[in-house]
């Protein structure tokens, strides 16, 4: 199997004219493509060139957000990254908080980390499931999607919504921990730990899976750095970089966790690292639920804006209702950027404010978009049957890449 990663210059020099190559249009309506099109040039069974054509689910989130009040961008960014809603929400709110100069109280920070870690597990399970169906294992697909449910239920218990939670708002979070959450979370975590053993038996240690993934789609460390890939895929190539460690946000600077890295950077490592990260997230959730401090869940600046009814509601139900400040928010002029480690990798936000009702420039980059070089660079030289392997192993999510 070819392990060569092609240079951009090499790729340009490949002559794909003539009748020697079969051109396959994989997608946009193809069971193995998702909402994108991969134009593949094949020499026999060997991939010569791949041209990813994305944008089929481009939802103009930047354009929409630049024409709305600041708070209204939260649901927009959430709906772009459906398996990863909390992280999109969190990244946007962090950026706005940097502009506003608000620091949320510690309890809110911990709650943010908590819901982010729950979301990371669901996102990784989603990725493992899609990888399963791409290799033909419907069992892992069903298991992973089924095992997402307990965690989604946890999110529902905490935030009131299953997927699009809109839980995190500038200055804090919207709900406090409900009664009985800790016990419920412990049950779910123990269940997941049991299930991880089953996953190892039927999927990770399956000889067919190992034959299909080991040494397939290898991206070496230096190439991963050069191509700027993100998230678990980057760490599978051996780069020690995690936004939670290097740009600490929420409560991560107080929490003790490891960043697993792998050596080879092939598809199998990218599978293993997701399993490892689920284990780390389980550890983190336990730690958060043990260490979580008492206190307010909303910054004082926001709390003072609440009217008496809202304050009463806050004291009784531990629920933050939106003060009018939220819709009339006008962050001072300036620019801010924030990074958040989502399930698939790093979300980057860059927002420019002119002190107006709307953001002047709203820019965000999602992890899947930055993982695009995998298609153009890593697939070349592999067989056609390896394309779904690589696609599934990088956990690419087209709607997220298109934004």
């Amino acid at each position: 199997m070819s392990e060569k990663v092609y240079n951009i210059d090499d790729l340009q020099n490949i002559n794909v004219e003539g009748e020697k190559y079969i051109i396959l249009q994989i997608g946009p309506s193809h069971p193995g493509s998702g909402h994108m099109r991969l134009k593949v040039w094949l020499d026999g069974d060997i991939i010569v060139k791949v041209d990813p054509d994305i944008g089929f689910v481009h939802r103009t989130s930047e354009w929409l957000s630049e024409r709305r009040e600041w708070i209204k961008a939260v649901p927009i960014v959430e709906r772009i990254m459906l398996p990863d809603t909390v992280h999109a929400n969190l990244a946007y709110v962090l950026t706005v908080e940097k502009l506003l100069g608000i620091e949320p109280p510690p309890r809110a920070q911990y709650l943010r980390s908590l819901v982010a870690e729950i979301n990371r597990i669901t996102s990784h399970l989603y990725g493992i499931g899609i990888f399963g169906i791409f290799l033909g294992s419907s069992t892992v697909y069903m298991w992973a999607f089924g095992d997402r449910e307990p965690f989604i239920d946890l999110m529902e218990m905490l935030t009131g919504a299953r997927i699009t939670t809109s839980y995190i708002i500038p200055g804090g979070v919207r709900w406090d921990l409900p009664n009985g959450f800790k016990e419920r979370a412990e049950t779910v975590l123990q269940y997941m730990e049991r299930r991880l053993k089953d996953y190892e038996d039927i999927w990770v240690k399956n000889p067919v899976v190992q034959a299909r993934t080991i040494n397939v789609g290898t991206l070496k460390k230096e190439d991963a750095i050069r191509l700027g890939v993100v998230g678990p895929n980057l760490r599978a190539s051996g780069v020690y970089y995690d936004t939670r460690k290097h740009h600490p946000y929420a409560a991560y600077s107080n929490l003790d966790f490891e960043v697993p890295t792998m050596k080879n950077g092939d598809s199998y490592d990218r599978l293993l690292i997701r399993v490892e990260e689920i284990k780390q997230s389980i550890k983190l959730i336990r730690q958060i639920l043990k260490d979580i401090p008492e206190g307010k869940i909303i910054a004082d600046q926001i709390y003072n804006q609440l009217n008496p009814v809202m304050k009463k509601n806050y004291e009784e139900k531990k629920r933050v209702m939106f003060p009018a400040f939220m819709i009339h928010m006008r962050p001072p002029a300036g620019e801010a950027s924030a990074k958040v480690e989502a399930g698939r990798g790093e979300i980057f936000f860059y927002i420019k404010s002119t002190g107006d009702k709307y953001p002047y420039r709203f820019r965000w980059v999602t992890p899947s978009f930055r993982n695009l070089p995998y298609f153009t660079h890593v697939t070349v030289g592999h067989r056609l049957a390896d394309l779904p392997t690589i696609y599934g192993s990088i956990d690419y999510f087209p709607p997220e890449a298109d934004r």
Partner: protein
Amino acid sequence: MNIKDELSKISTNLVIDEKRANYKIIIDEPSKLIDVANSIKNLGFDHVVSVTGVDYPDKIEVIWHVSSYSSEELKGIDLAISMTVKKPEPLKQTDAQGNINVNRPPVTVPSLVSVWPSGIFSEREAFEMFGIIFDGHPDLRYLMLPEDFYGTWPLRKDFTYQKPKVFIE
């Protein structure tokens, strides 16, 4: 290594926002861009996070956000390289039906793909959204939008959505 000193050696136009840990290098001459980028890369900033534009009434600011995976000290730092170019005057044309078509020509800046290959898709996106032609980009095609959006540059502030006049054929 003191990052501030190193960066100010490279360029005098360094804006530092201490509170938000933002570093921004402003480039005034397009010819300097690639040299500055190369020296930034030699510092250890090894990949591009995002390439984007900010549209102002008379100019466009192109921003490369770069960051580092390989250097321990730089991992926590976001560096923006910003270059501002003047927008050419829009050309107004009246067609046979009396509609005024505003033709907004694109601007040209040097491409940094030769320095950071990771920016290849981001630069394509900035090209289609803002009409920034990256000179030296090896593969400057439309990425997300259909080709017939050419000239509309949707993320510029003067973009107006025009309903298609003829729906079929």
